[in-house]
């Protein structure tokens, strides 16, 4: 049942504890939003899911596998910026998602042709076909992030990790990106982890919202204890969790 399982994960840098006793399980196709104060370790958690760094203690497994030692094609990622390659055109960025796993990072002949037509279909889908020959630097922030998401999805990862993907966008573009992401998600049923500072966004997009915070606090040594998941909200039904809670605990409705 559980697709991603995080078991008793700790992380520390030097003698500073960042995360401690993080436990959660995620079903396939779930969209998990992650919120928490700045510097509490959300990106650190994502980096461990990505296998960019390994937990100090504990295990992270995808579909029953071992804790990974380095990033691989199972895990796709979109960062706030620098997620696409500046020296490749928009179309080449999408083709790279297929060709980089080849021995020389290139596709030839029929394979190349097939990848190109798939890239063109994706460009159509993400609404970037009119800029396919341009370089990322000439695109708007929203377009760059759409490209980054399209590129990550092209590699068909098992989980998609988003670290404040819309953090640098204006509110209007943000809303467009929400629709875009929700549509893509309906089409692919991808398992997604998204870090955000925007609570509305977290509840709107997520099936669950995980809150990271420090459960213990040592006033003499703030670095002694790390953060963990302190709340795990059900956020379906357009981010109105109380409806489910009322279903489960009818007694709460009475005052």
């Amino acid at each position: 049942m559980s697709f991603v399982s995080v078991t008793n994960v700790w992380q520390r840098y030097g003698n500073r504890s960042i995360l401690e006793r993080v436990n959660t399980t995620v079903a396939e196709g779930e969209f998990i939003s992650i919120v928490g104060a700045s510097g509490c370790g959300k990106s650190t958690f994502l980096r461990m899911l990505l296998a960019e760094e390994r937990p100090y203690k504990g295990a992270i497994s995808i579909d029953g596998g071992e804790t990974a030692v380095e990033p691989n094609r199972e895990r796709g990622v979109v960062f706030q910026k620098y997620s696409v390659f500046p020296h490749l055109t928009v179309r080449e960025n999408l083709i790279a998602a297929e060709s980089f796993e080849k021995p020389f990072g290139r596709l030839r002949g029929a394979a190349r042709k097939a990848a190109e037509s798939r890239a063109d279909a994706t460009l159509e889908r993400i609404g970037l076909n009119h800029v396919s020959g341009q370089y990322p630097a000439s695109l708007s922030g929203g377009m760059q992030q759409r490209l980054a998401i399209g590129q990550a999805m092209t590699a068909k990862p098992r989980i998609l990790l988003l670290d404040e993907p819309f953090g640098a966008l204006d509110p209007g573009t943000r809303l467009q990106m929400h629709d875009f992401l929700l549509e893509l998600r309906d089409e692919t049923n991808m398992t997604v982890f998204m870090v955000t500072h925007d609570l509305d966004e977290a509840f709107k997009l997520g099936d669950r919202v995980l809150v990271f915070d420090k459960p213990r606090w040592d006033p003499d040594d703030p670095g002694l204890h790390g953060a963990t998941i302190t709340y795990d909200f059900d956020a379906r039904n357009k981010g109105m969790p109380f409806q489910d809670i009322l279903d489960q605990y009818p007694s709460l409705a009475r005052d």
Partner: protein
Amino acid sequence: MRLINHIPARPGAIILAALPFVLIFVAYSVASDFRLTANPQDKLLPAPSTIAETAERLFTTPDKRSKEILLWNDTLASLARLSGGVAISAALSLVLGLAIGLLPYARSLFSGFIAVLSMVPPLALLPILFIVFGLGEVSKVVLIVIGITPFMTRDLAQRVMEIPKEQIVKAQTLGASSWVIAQRVALPQVLPRLISNVRLSLGSAWLFLIAAEAVASDVGLGYRIFLVRRYLAMDVILTYVIWITLLAFVIDWLLKSLSRRAFPWMEAGL
């Protein structure tokens, strides 16, 4: 208005750019005229017209003994050494820079060594090079390589390390091996830097070349300058100096246009 906000208009800017050249030329002509009126035999500051005549002779008249035009021979010999040395340095620094920038093991192994190596004054090694490689072409090329490779390597390694971590991680999530990351992510992004490094290093490369040619050679621009110095042939020396400057300028300009043409993505954001 503040001085920093005064900007010369188009014709004024061109005149200003030309001014230092004109001033030098006028100052030289006046000084030369001065000395020549006092002593027509003076060799120190030949008149501009004399230099022009000498230049024409050097570029067109073959040597009596060898029947070849020495200036062209010198130019070809020097350019061959220069381009050989610079090409080897560029290739070496690219490979080393990528390795140091991407591979932690290579970084531990080389970065200290190259930092120390770049402190060794290359000209002090020249005698050793002559002893080891003889007085032929190899020692001159090696001097250029030793002289400019450490700097170029350090700079390229630095650039590779400045590539955002996000891109390197992203490439890994697309399944790229270290080799693919080096060749498809890092290499294309540091190539423009390699070209600007070559442009920056050409000055030092010329310096090392002329020094090596001055000490031991039988052909080459540096060799010729130091040969005719014995006869105080200022007109020949000045012709060669202007010619070397012109060559350096043209090479620099070619590299600059190559860089602009070859890396359109660099300017996409501007």
